[in-house]
């Protein structure tokens, strides 16, 4: 079964993860732009970050047969740095048209400040203009209220709910999302957010319609193999193959496919290629698919 990890921050992962992910059956990923552990102090740093998501990361993924897509925006945490945030917002129209951009995101609330609301509403409007889906992060703190406020803002802006993916859901927020036409993402994490068995229980309760799972692996203690591990947990719990495939492939493909840029026909792997003179190999024999 082909697997899709629709939320993973590969910039923070070593190349060996790409190899192991490909071996585990992951053949497509979406990398949302996010914060890097500490706030950036220049707009230009964001621009270089966007360029690397569109350039080097796509190349690195392609070297292992993985199709790499991204979502771009200012993230909720850095929305609170006013001097930077507006500059990043001004950059977006130049980047949202690029190949490989399949949504606007991550946007949403963190501390739920007024500044965050503004930096949430503005990219939503851009997504309408560029006819892209949006990826909405829900906050760690005061999560229920943050989720309710996010859904309310989507309605207020008049953004089509079927193009909205509300992420990092839990037992309390999932029913709120399913009452709307938005899609519901779940980040399977080693200790926080959601785990494999709780996820299985949610699918047993609510079915697979509009349900998506991801690893949200990043620079923290996280696990890029959480999608395959959850597939295993789903099989062990006796969920049928069709349900599993809906959650880990059909749903993310349908959701991000709304961008009309989710081109999953990949070129054969050719590890003899270079990116601006750089190879991902360190003395290994290049793999070249025919």
């Amino acid at each position, binding site marked *: 079964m082909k697997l899709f990890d629709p939320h993973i921050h590969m910039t923070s992962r070593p190349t060996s993860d790409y190899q192991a992910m490909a071996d585990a059956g992951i053949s497509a990923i979406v990398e949302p732009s996010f914060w890097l*552990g500490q706030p950036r102090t220049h707009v230009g740093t964001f621009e270089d970050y966007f360029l690397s998501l569109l350039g080097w990361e796509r190349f690195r993924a392609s070297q292992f047969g993985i199709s790499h897509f991204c979502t771009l925006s200012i993230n909720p945490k850095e929305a609170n740095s006013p001097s930077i945030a507006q500059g990043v917002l001004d950059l977006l129209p130049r980047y949202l048209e690029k190949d490989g951009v399949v949504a606007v995101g991550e946007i949403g609330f963190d501390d739920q400040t007024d500044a965050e609301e503004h930096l949430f509403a503005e990219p939503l409007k851009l997504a309408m203009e560029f006819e892209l889906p949006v990826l909405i992060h829900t906050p760690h*703190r005061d999560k229920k209220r943050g989720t309710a406020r996010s859904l309310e803002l989507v309605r207020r802006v008049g953004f089509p709910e079927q193009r909205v993916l509300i992420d990092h859901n839990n037992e*309390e927020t999932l029913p709120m999302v399913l009452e709307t036409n938005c899609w519901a993402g779940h980040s399977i994490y080693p200790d926080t957010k959601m785990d494999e068995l709780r996820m299985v229980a949610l699918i047993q309760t609510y079915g697979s319609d509009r349900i998506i799972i991801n690893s949200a692996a990043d620079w923290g203690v996280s696990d890029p193999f959480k999608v395959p591990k959850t597939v295993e947990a789903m099989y062990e719990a006796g969920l049928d193959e069709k349900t599993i495939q809906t959650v880990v492939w059909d749903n993310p493909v349908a959701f991000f496919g709304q961008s009309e840029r989710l081109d999953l026909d990949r070129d054969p792997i050719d590890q003899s290629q270079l990116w601006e003179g750089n190879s991902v190999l360190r003395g290994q024999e290049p793999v070249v698919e025919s």
Partner: protein
Amino acid sequence: MVSRIESPLDRNIFGAAYAGARRRLGGEPVVLDAEEQAALKGTGLLSLSGHSLDEVCRIALLVRTSECLPPEDYSSFISELYIRGDNFERQALLRGLTYLPDPEQFLSTAIEACRTSVQLIFEAIACDNPYPFRYFPELNYNQMVLKALFIGSPLARLVGLEERITPELVRMAEDYATERQAAGRPVPEDIPLFITNDLGARNEAF
């Protein structure tokens, strides 16, 4: 070190003194004998207990620079110093904020510090520091309390918390407790004490 800081401020001399303080002086806690404590008491000066030697030096440098810069430049000086600081430089700056002139002018730096993923920096502003109690708006104060619960910083170390408890903050804590229960995870022991406003009992227990 502090006496080398003169007006007009030479930012390179200041930057080197501030950055090198920990390497030169070490991070041992300041211990005062009874006579020194008595001399300090009632002066309104920095209470040195709980601070390390490098931190006291850094705060002294900050106080001195406030006398060497035009008042209108001081808040951007502090925010730039925060942005360019390493963890210990930031920690000293945050713990020194209430000793600087017009502390409210540093509000955005203090709130930004609460967004850190470094516990040392979060606790420098949130714990044993009167700044949030005195200057944070309700929303930012509440978010700080939730983050303390989230990352396991003891609420007993939040200065003035009892006076900042509002129905909204209790609602946020209760929601966090039910979220943990729904996920089959333990509820932090500070939450029930907090909801019943009985953190005093916890303080006594420790």
